[in-house]
């Protein structure tokens, strides 16, 4: 399954997250294998301005 497809399935906006595999960013078209361990890292932050 591609990264983009996984994020769609999880209903996550690609603008709001990055996917990290083994400490490295993974682009939207990358294929994920069944035994891959990936981190979906939120990038949105914000409190007082």
């Amino acid at each position, binding site marked *: 399954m591609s990264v983009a497809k996984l994020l769609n399935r999880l209903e996550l*906006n*690609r*603008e*709001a*997250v*990055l996917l*990290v595999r083994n*400490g*490295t*960013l*993974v*682009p*939207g*078209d*990358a294929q994920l294998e069944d035994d891959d361990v990936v981190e979906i*890292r*939120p*990038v*949105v*932050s*914000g*409190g*007082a*301005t």
Partner: protein
Amino acid sequence: MKCTVCREPALIDLRRHNSNFCAEHLLRFCRDQVRRAIEEFDMLRPADRVLVAVSGGKDSLAVWDILVGLGYDATGLYVGLGIGDYSDTSADHARRFATERGLELITVDVPETYGYDIPEGSRAARRAPCSACGLTKRHLFDQAAVDGGFDALVTGHNLDDEAAVLLGNVLHWQTEYLGRQHPVLEARDGFPRKVKPLVRLGEREVAAYCITAGIDYIVDECPMAVGNKHLGYKEVLNALEAGSPGAKADFYLGFLRKAAAAFGAEAEAGRAALGTCNRCGAPSSSDTCAFCRLVERATDPERSRR
């Protein structure tokens, strides 16, 4: 997917730039965007001594890292706000970043120095937590920049932050605020010069920069910010961006180019005549500044017994 520049495998696709980048060219892209913002908005001169407000999060550590890489004399300032484990962890990230790179980090601890923390201050002043936090940080950042004789105070506000603030100001037609929403605020009436070098970078790009540059930042969101309006505006803008890449940049950078000047007169007219706070000496439109009033309310033993 291949890097648009060198055709090596790409790490990230940036749809608003119609580009994909490998590690080397992602880092170069981010540095170039900061350099371009500094030039476009006349933010800094090469010999400037700058104070970077550092939270331990991705934006402030990225802007500090990039400014040092561009050759600026940049000192960090961390303000401990007493927000439980979150503050402890964010302080660790800020200190570790500075130590590993041999950079100077000034630290001000609010509970230790002023006797209250943000949850207490928020309750006592009947302000939203982000409001009490913002007031505290702005005051201490300004004070440290002026007292330290720095040429500018740098904050890590990025394109998404500024677009979200702009959306809020437009929704409520806060015309005075619209007139002041610029990535450079000149020094005036005892306030330091303030600049935002990340305004050309979205927060996805800034997070990608940190991961790729090996910057270990605090990923968790501040527990007190959850559900605030600012995050709601960002969600709306990201929904627009998903269907129309570049929408956030067009909105904010287009505002700066085409509309901001129209609100300048209102911003100027709305500026209150400033005197000096009778307690701390900071510029203030009343006898006692808002920060000193917050400290007073938050540390009043009578109030805490009620």
